[in-house]
């Protein structure tokens, strides 16, 4: 049987169970709202300022971009890892060049301090 058909069946089952779980409280629980319940929790004080004004450090953006780059590198390693015995030493040299260039990049961003987090 096509594994993707099995995947579809699985996805449907998991999605169904997750949806049922999601609505359980709605079905089983009480619905008595009061104004206080619907306020955002900020340890007793009324919420100060909206979320929209919050500053968001640039570091997170940099982390996300570096993550993408290294993710792509890792993803390139998978086809090589699967056939690496057939490719032998030549394949190893190719991959060494690939990893080497990116290792240089890692060293650079390490030195520059892009991996620092205060």
């Amino acid at each position, binding site marked *: 049987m096509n594994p993707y058909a099995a995947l579809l069946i699985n996805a449907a089952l998991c999605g169904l169970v997750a949806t049922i779980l999601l609505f359980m409280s709605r079905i089983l629980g009480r619905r008595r709202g009061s104004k206080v319940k619907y306020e955002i929790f900020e340890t007793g004080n009324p919420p100060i300022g909206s979320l929209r004004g*919050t500053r968001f450090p640039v570091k997170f*953006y940099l982390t996300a971009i570096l*993550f993408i780059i290294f*993710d792509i590198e890792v993803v390139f390693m998978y*086809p*090589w890892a699967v056939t690496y015995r057939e490719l032998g030493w030549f394949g190893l040299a190719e991959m060494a060049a690939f990893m080497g*260039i990116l290792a240089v990049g890692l060293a650079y*961003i390490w030195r520059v301090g892009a991996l620092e987090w205060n």
Partner: protein
Amino acid sequence: MDRDVILFWVVAVLSVASALTAVLHRNPVYCALALVMALFQVALMFVALDAHLIALLQVIVYAGAIVVLFLFVIMLLNLEPDAPTRGRYGMHAATIMVAVVLGVEIATAVWISEPGSPFPAPFDLGSTRMVAQRLFTEHLLPFELTSVLLLVAMVGAVVMARRRV
């Protein structure tokens, strides 16, 4: 009805709907999530074309990493949901024109292209092993150039991010 046809239509409707949402919705977070949905549909289409490795990579890299970056940027910039604007007439006209030209190009390409090989492709045409065998022998140069490209991206990202600090 043939299963492939049903699958195609479901995927097609979902991808058009999610792509339209991604482009037209006012709230940028919703747009990003619609984009994830659209990328899923693309992955499904890859599966239908027997490109198994690319389908998984589509989810891992595109839906799992790049859109995360999009979301981070949206939250970084605190993008407000767009207030409906009239828009400068010039900009809207240019957008529509580009879209029309693109549509005509794609339609023409489909019209004049010839159907693919008459021999059915083996099931594992796009499997990891097959792709690997081609990638590291015939297409070695683009592969190595990719690493240089990634290095450039790394350095560029660091330079850009540090300028604001």
